[in-house]
């Protein structure tokens, strides 16, 4: 077998980044007490919007900005449905995913087979030439570092700032937060928009860097994995990185095994990351007491100001 650990780790980081971006956004959304199952839809809308913008402007940066905006616009639809019109969050989220997939296919009709402008890698003044560490840590594009920075910022926000405390309070007990005078709907709407923007970025990373190409349905379940990883991380930002990289690792490993012609049917290998995710989720929720301690207590509940 010919699998290089160094290139494996380097590629798994790339494979994990879209999921990490989307999961970070969803973490904030869920911390505010909203369950948005539309991550997959917002990702693919981000993927096609980013792709269109990047191809037409020639700038990957414009692509990412457009992707974040498009994800946020779709999320705004979800926010209006669930926060203003008090629609069921699960049903609205599922609808958002299906709507996003369909709309993206429509928008992307004439963009199949085009190559997007390539995103340059970050220059670390030769650090990339260091053996082993160089290719793993210092040979990536800007978005990889941005995703790590984003997790750090989210961690700082949740743990140390008053805004983070209010966000957690709203997700914990929206009635109490309302009684204390916090604007539950406004805070949740902002969280949902942030989640949408992050999912859009994750989608654009797929179409502009990871693949890079537009194909219909190219997110292929990445949004669902991002949702699962939030639970896997028990709503703690640092564990998102662990979860995303673990998933990325299994994905890359199975690709490598396939490429090396290991004598296992391909279908088993491509199932593997999802099976591992399910397995980890089962293990994580085995201790029901601990699992329910970590979850935001108002998660998925509809808030109706009755005063």
């Amino acid at each position, binding site marked *: 077998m010919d699998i290089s650990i160094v290139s494996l780790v380097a590629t798994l980081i790339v494979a994990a980044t879209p999921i990490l971006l989307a999961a970070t956004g969803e973490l904030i959304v869920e911390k505010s007490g909203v369950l948005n199952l539309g991550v997959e839809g917002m990702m693919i809308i981000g993927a096609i919007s980013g792709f269109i913008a990047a191809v037409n402007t020639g700038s990957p940066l414009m692509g990412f900005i457009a992707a974040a905006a498009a994800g946020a616009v779709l999320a705004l639809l979800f926010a209006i449905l669930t926060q203003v019109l008090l629609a069921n969050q699960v049903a609205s989220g599922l609808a958002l995913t299906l709507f996003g997939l369909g709309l993206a296919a429509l928008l992307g009709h004439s963009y199949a087979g085009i190559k997007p402008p390539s995103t340059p890698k970050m220059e670390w003044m030769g650090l990339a030439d260091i053996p082993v560490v160089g290719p793993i840590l210092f040979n990536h594009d800007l978005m990889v570092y941005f995703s790590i920075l984003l997790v750090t910022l989210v961690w700082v926000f949740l743990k140390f700032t008053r805004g983070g405390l209010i966000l957690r*309070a709203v997700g914990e007990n929206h009635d109490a*937060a309302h*009684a*204390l005078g916090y604007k539950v709907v406004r805070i949740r709407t902002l969280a949902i928009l942030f989640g949408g923007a992050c999912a859009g970025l994750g989608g654009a990373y797929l179409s502009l860097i990871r693949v890079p190409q537009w194909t219909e349905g190219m997110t292929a379940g990445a949004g669902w994995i991002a949702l699962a990883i939030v639970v896997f991380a028990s709503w703690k930002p640092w564990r998102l990185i662990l979860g995303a990289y673990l998933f990325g690792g299994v994905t890359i490993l199975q690709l490598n095994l396939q490429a090396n012609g290991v004598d296992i049917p391909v279908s088993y290998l491509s199932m593997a990351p999802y099976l591992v995710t399910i397995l980890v989720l089962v293990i994580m929720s085995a201790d029901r007491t601990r699992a329910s301690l970590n979850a935001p207590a108002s998660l998925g509940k509809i808030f109706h100001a009755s005063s």
Partner: protein
Amino acid sequence: MTLITLNGLTKAYPGVIANDDVSFDIDKGEVHALLGENGAGKSTLVKMIYGLVKPDSGQMTFNGEIFAPAEPRAARIAGVAMVFQHFSLFEALNVAENIALGMENPPKPNVLSEQIRNVSTKYGLTLDPDRLVGDLSVGERQRVEIIRCLLQDPKLLIMDEPTSVLTPQEVDVLFTTLRRLRDEGTSILYISHKLEEIKALCERATILRHGKVVGTCVPKDETAKSMAEMMVGAKLKTPKKSATKFGAPLLVVENMSQKSIDPFGTSLKNITFNLRAGEVMGVAGVAGNGQDELMLALSGETLTDAESVKLEGAFMGQSGPVERRLRGLLTAPEERLGHAAAPDMSLTENTLLSGFQRQKLGRRGFVNKAGAAAFAQKIIEEFDVRTPSVRNTAKSLSGGNLQKFVVGREVLQNPTVFIVNQPTWGVDAAAAASIRQALLELASGGAGVLVISQDLDELMEISDTFAVLSEGNMSTPRPAKGVTVEEIGLMMGGTKV
């Protein structure tokens, strides 16, 4: 000196006028009581003072100036603080975080912790700022709310039913704190159902009925009964029990232990007692000491060792609720909306849910809707449940009416053993008296009745024997006659008497 004046406050909701031309004032350094039955409009009124609800008409002055808070923030800045009936706390956050959330400009965490320690020592309210609120007892949770208010230096402190969940000793601590605040010049608006407490604490009282002020009084010059009658607007009867002869043990619980499924719950430890025919056993205890878990284990919603529960000689620990119901063990849990009754289902359907087997309201998998409706109608008539018809949903009933329905539904199924948790929680005086009367009549008819409650006065009134739940342990039941409130208070705090 007047601190706050309310002038002609009116607030209407679709179909009901919550407050109708309410006017009164509170002096500086006065403890003012607000009395009234459920639905009399007390909550709406204090929400208007706290800026959560805007009045339709009328106005308030605070310290001589027009006062119309648009949101709680504005009220807090003016100097109004409020301790809520259902605490506005966040279980997964710690004490300091909870307090910071209720403040306008909280200091840095370490400074805040220091302030919390200072205030808690000053007023004798022990509290550790770093503990998770979910791990605190109800009394400690209330301290969090009070300290949150005190740190803002309030001029007016509103307390909505603060003592309904406290032990007598905790009530004493609270009253000491409140008197001290009053002496320092803080005004307190005090809402409570407990009239003895109002006599002990308050200088003046305003009484609301159906949203209108129907009277004011000086509580010291009144009796609890006279104030209750002013609230209800009618004479009250005290429930009476005929005989106190006990028959054979009906329900024998032996060494029942059960780990709680709730991360913040209390596990049951070696619960042992006998409930005899004709006996009303009262189980006291502060909320969160295992009441919910005991209820679940007795109803069969959680299963325990087969031998730990014996109903008329048969081991039932491993039998679910349906089997227990068939054998005559009926229960009415505390949470009436969502646990005892399905909110969006009609009263007929709710009757079916608990009476299906025992009242034979179904055959070969089909429901007997007419039979169920007739049974629901019977409950409504015999228990004076006020509702337009049996087709109305459970959630459309007021708390007191639904409670009468829930208790009546079980009582009319002729239970051998009836277990009820908080039978009159949040129910007004007249309805509470009729529910208690029904429980006593049930026992007189030869059933065993177990009443879990936090209302000591209620337990003293109806119980033959008396036990206390504390941290999942149950004391040995003893005759209720001769037990003093002080003793019970000590037992509730975990002391063996």
